[in-house]
């Protein structure tokens, strides 16, 4: 698994629950190091161990943890850069949803060896969408769910998102858009200097 993904889990635990909890996770997962390098690769089983350990240390179901990771990635100030990159996808939430089809290509432009699962947006009506996610990473859909919820807030859109289940490597998220400019959302300047 790419270091960026492992690093995301690590930063989520550190920033949300503190260093000590992360220490517990590394011990429980049997890591021989204290932190992941974003630009290195790690064996897949390591990610699985870390996720299992995280869920055990935090005493929460793994799906919830995954969803929180998705939310964290968009809303925590320490990872502001990622939120900005996602906001480049579109000027409003619907445009952003459409940009998700290109998400893995966009990611590869930035980090050529980071392969994210393909996602596909299906438009059932003007305000009803499904996001189909084909992933070998179990629970990737939950990360997306958390990420989409946070992005809806970011754009100031009011939307109902639901995990519709999945199987055989395909997960499905239903998105019902109630109002696209429900609140002001968060400011996004194209040319802001990143922190």
């Amino acid at each position, binding site marked *: 698994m790419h270091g960026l993904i492992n690093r995301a889990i690590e930063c989520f635990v550190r920033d949300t629950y503190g260093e000590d909890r992360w220490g517990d996770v590394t011990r429980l997962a049997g890591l021989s190091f204290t932190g992941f390098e974003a630009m290195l690769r790690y064996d897949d089983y390591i990610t699985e161990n870390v996720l299992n350990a995280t869920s055990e240390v935090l005493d929460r179901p793994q799906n919830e943890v995954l969803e929180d990771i998705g939310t964290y990635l968009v809303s925590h100030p320490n990872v502001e850069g990622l939120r900005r990159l996602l906001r480049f996808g579109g000027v409003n939430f619907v445009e952003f949803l459409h940009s998700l089809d290109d998400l893995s290509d966009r990611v590869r432009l*930035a*980090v050529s060896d980071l392969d994210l699962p393909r996602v596909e947006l299906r438009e059932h009506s003007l305000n009803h969408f499904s996001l189909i996610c084909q992933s070998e990473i179990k629970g990737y859909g939950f990360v997306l769910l958390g990420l989409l919820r946070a992005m809806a807030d970011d754009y100031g859109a009011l939307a109902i998102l639901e995990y519709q289940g999945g199987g055989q490597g395909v997960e499905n998220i239903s998105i019902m858009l109630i109002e696209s400019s429900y609140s002001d959302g968060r400011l996004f300047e194209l040319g802001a200097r990143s922190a």
Partner: protein
Amino acid sequence: MTQRTKNSADLDTVLDVLCPMHVTLDATGHIRHAGPTLQKLYTEGDLIGRRFLEVFELNRPRAIATMTELLSVCGVKLHLQFRNAPRTGLKGILVVGPEPDEAIINLSFGISILDGVRDYALTSADFAATDLTVEMLYLIEAKSAAMEASRTLNLRLQGAMIAAEEQAFTDTLTGLKNRRAMDHVLSRMLGSDEPFALMHLDLDFFKAVNDTLGHAAGDHVLQKVARIMVDETRDVDTISRVGGDEFVLIFPGLTDHATLERVALRVISLLEEPIPFEGAMCKISASIGTVLSSDYDDPTAEQLFADADVALYASKHAGRACHRFYVDELRDNVQNTKPPTGRDAHQAKAG
């Protein structure tokens, strides 16, 4: 006339969408219409009615002062900038408009795009939907973030490399053990019951080789010296380079004076054979002082080194190329407790 106005108005609307940074000039070189984004960049009021060349300064091609001259650079890539602050640089291209004597100039930021977007707080809506600017901004940010992550990794790896080098036990030039390795071996030997001999060897005339023939020659000599010592000792012996031209040899289980003397003198005589280097001959020698752990009730590293130094200095004073065993009487000659004159201060402290 009505027809012309309608066509122009249609064209303005079309261009506002396709090229939001265009201007249309009339026959006198005044701005008849400006795209919405270009108007946004101009903070001094309405662009319409102003003379194009009074708002913009044309850097390339140069010496364009009139509308006629402007029309003559039709189709040529223009480099220009706003005359008012922040004097943003722009690229442009001029085409003759569909109406007689009219010119349309389309402008873009070029490489100054990042500053432009910041200075004017532009949004996606300020660019044509087909414009790749927003994608480019995305790429700039994504690549900067990735570079930053790589830079952090490089810094950490560099730190790890330095730490590893500090922990290394090998002298990279000669392949011999370094001082740290020797310290380890010595403390292990001191902790065991096995007696051993410790030789302190110092090259003579090495500095002259370095000074006259250069560092490459010096390095070559050190490598040759290392090979000689390895060849003349046993596998169980430890040979370490502890300074620029200083070596310490530890012989486990060997305390026989005659054998040690033979080894020392043989090493010295082999070192005295001139070493060829790029057509020149490097001539060096060596002095050696030896201590035996068995001469002490409770030997310490400090004591052994100090006494080996005294024996070494005695060898030097005896005319170099000599070998001495340490005996307390050597200290009676106060000369022997100090390095010979001319030797570097750091060597005096060695051990």
